[in-house]
């Protein structure tokens, strides 16, 4: 029986708690949060032992592993403290905002042979894994383009009261939302070697970005595009979709289904796939989980963490792969500040190839400002 603790009881921490608590191979020893209110309610009704100071909890409790689900900017500090005590660590994404810190902690965890996992749960969605299997099998041939899209309803008003609306806290669509799509790209086709044309734009937020667009290069002749927007309530919940083109066809994949178009069936043939369109649904691809709360992938990733601890295997989503994802995101942020090429005749450019990058400002805020100052 592994003894576990959870640090940070927001939406994700509580969700983890409900699954960890009933995992047959885990004993939930304690939980920790800065809100005494949530702790009091949990302690009273579920009997779980609670702490408000994670250092105290790590010092007092005998633990094998810890789940970190605090706001992003505390991840590195807490992960580091847990590794100091030789614990296996599951950390919520994006894990480390600074990739250099991320890689350093990955080094430490690997040196200490501690299982290290990050909550990029899309790596546990059956349909994406089927797409990965087909790509690894080179079913659609040489890849030349991939498009990743993620849309959903997170920020729909100018004001938000939590850390998600503060850039300094690791908020913003890039690190809090787009990172899922970036991580999936890395998982399916490998890390890009370059990013360009990145746009970090605000729709509602004052301090952070709400939509992100970027172009990726993976190799000579293989490019990708990323489009994410968390201010889109036309989606009931977060929706991530990838479209991949290769010399022998294409794959469209989202959480629910994998659509595969094959120009011809390669040798040796792939069971269940024929030339032309093929569709496989989540209902046939998804393996049952021991306990279901909000999607098999959330349960599966926790069970995967447990199995890795038992067998010493490397987690599918680990500190190193998550640092790769943070590195891509950081490169995109740097790229967004680069000058762009003006659309103008040569003479009008005045010798300089480019103009100032557009300033990111909430579109709605700009409108309100203009209305307020009487400008049109």
């Amino acid at each position, binding site marked *: 029986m592994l003894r576990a603790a959870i640090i940070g009881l*927001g939406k994700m921490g*509580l969700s983890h708690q*409900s699954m960890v608590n009933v995992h047959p191979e885990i004993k939930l020893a304690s939980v920790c949060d800065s*809100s005494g209110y949530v702790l009091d309610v949990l302690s009273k009704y579920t009997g779980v032992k609670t702490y408000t100071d994670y250092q105290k909890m790590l010092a007092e409790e005998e633990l094998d592993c810890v789940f970190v689900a605090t706001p992003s900017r505390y991840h590195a500090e807490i992960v580091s403290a847990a590794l100091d005590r030789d614990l296996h660590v599951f950390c919520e994404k994006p894990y480390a905002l600074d990739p250099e810190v991320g890689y350093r902690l990955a080094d430490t965890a690997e040196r200490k042979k501690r299982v290290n996992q990050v909550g990029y749960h899309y790596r546990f969605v059956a349909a994406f894994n089927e797409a990965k299997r087909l790509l690894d099998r080179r079913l659609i041939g040489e890849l030349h383009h991939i498009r990743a899209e993620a849309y959903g309803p997170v920020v729909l008003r100018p004001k938000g009261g939590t850390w998600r609306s503060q850039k300094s806290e690791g908020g913003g669509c890039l690190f809090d939302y787009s990172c899922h799509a970036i991580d999936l790209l890395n998982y399916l086709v490998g890390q890009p070697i370059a990013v360009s044309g990145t746009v970090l734009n605000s729709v509602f937020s004052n301090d952070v970005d709400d939509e992100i667009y970027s172009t990726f290069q993976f190799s000579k002749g293989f490019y990708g595009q990323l489009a994410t927007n968390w201010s889109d309530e036309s989606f*009931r919940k977060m929706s991530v979709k990838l479209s991949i083109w290769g010399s022998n066809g294409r794959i469209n994949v989202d959480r629910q*289904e994998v659509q595969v178009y094959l120009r011809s069936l390669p040798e040796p043939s792939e069971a269940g796939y024929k030339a032309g369109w093929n569709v496989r649904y989540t209902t046939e691809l998804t393996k*049952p*989980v*021991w*306990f279901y709360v909000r999607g098999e992938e959330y349960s599966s990733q926790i069970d995967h963490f447990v199995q890795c601890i038992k067998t010493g295997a490397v987690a599918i989503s680990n500190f190193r792969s998550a640092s790769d994802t943070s590195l891509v995101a950081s490169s995109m942020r740097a790229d967004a500040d680069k000058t762009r090429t003006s659309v103008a005749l040569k003479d009008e450019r005045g010798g300089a190839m480019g103009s100032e990058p557009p300033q990111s400002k909430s579109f709605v805020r700009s409108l309100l400002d203009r209305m307020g100052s009487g400008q049109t």
Partner: protein
Amino acid sequence: MLTQMDRILFGDNQFFGVNHMSEEKARTQSMRFQDIGAIIEVLDDAYAEGIRTFMCTTHERISEVCDHFRKHAGKYPGFKFFPCLPYAHKYANAAAELGVLGAVRSFLPQENALGALLKGGMSLARKDVEGLAGLLIDAEMKMFADLDTPVVFLQNVATDFLLGLGFDDAFRMFNDHVRERYGAEPGFITMNAPFLLQKLEKAGLQNPIICTNINKIAFRMSGGMDAYEDMIRQGRSRLIAMSVFASGALPAKEALDYVCQFPQIESIVFGASSRRNIGQTKQMIERLTPSSMVAGSAL
């Protein structure tokens, strides 16, 4: 006295862009049903086919459906609603934006009812979870005022989240409030039925109404096929089978053959968008329903 449940219940996933197999299909459906008239038309079709129970979420648009049924009550004798609450995405999105406490606060009564507002603030301050839960249930039930709601369900995200946390007392609170305030029987939707039943029995809720996935391919039947079939055969709960077609992965006849072999399964809930489909599915269920069940049911 036990509440009589119809053999066939009509679900609402198809109206709100929920489709477990295809996002594209889900979007097409949410476009078709963005006009409330289109939803009413399908409900009229279901009524004409003899369906009398609408099992629905507390999606804000359901309140418009409720308005229609109140206004035209004479047109729908015997029509019942089985509300399923809370509408979880609303809470999950609010929790991400406002934090856990902020989300709870945002759904407490805000307008008009000064008493409820004070009660809400006091309950929140006192960590009186039972009082808070009652207020949140009342807020969601408001749209069903004056309509027949003999069974009120706790949605699966809420049921399973509380089940995982070990917050067993919540089921008793839900039971008590639904019975006392609405004179209704509580029901529990879950993806973990065998485990839930144990916990409900421990909490003192005997022979509870449980709505859960029951399908031939064990899609989202956590605990596994064997545990589910054991639970069904033991007959210690009043079962409603949902996802019997596994979101379309199973052909209708094969799917219903499986579910209808169990006389212990009291009701089947399904959603459909055309009168033809509603009628065919209903007839097929009726044909496959064991004759021993027909006398006691509301067919």
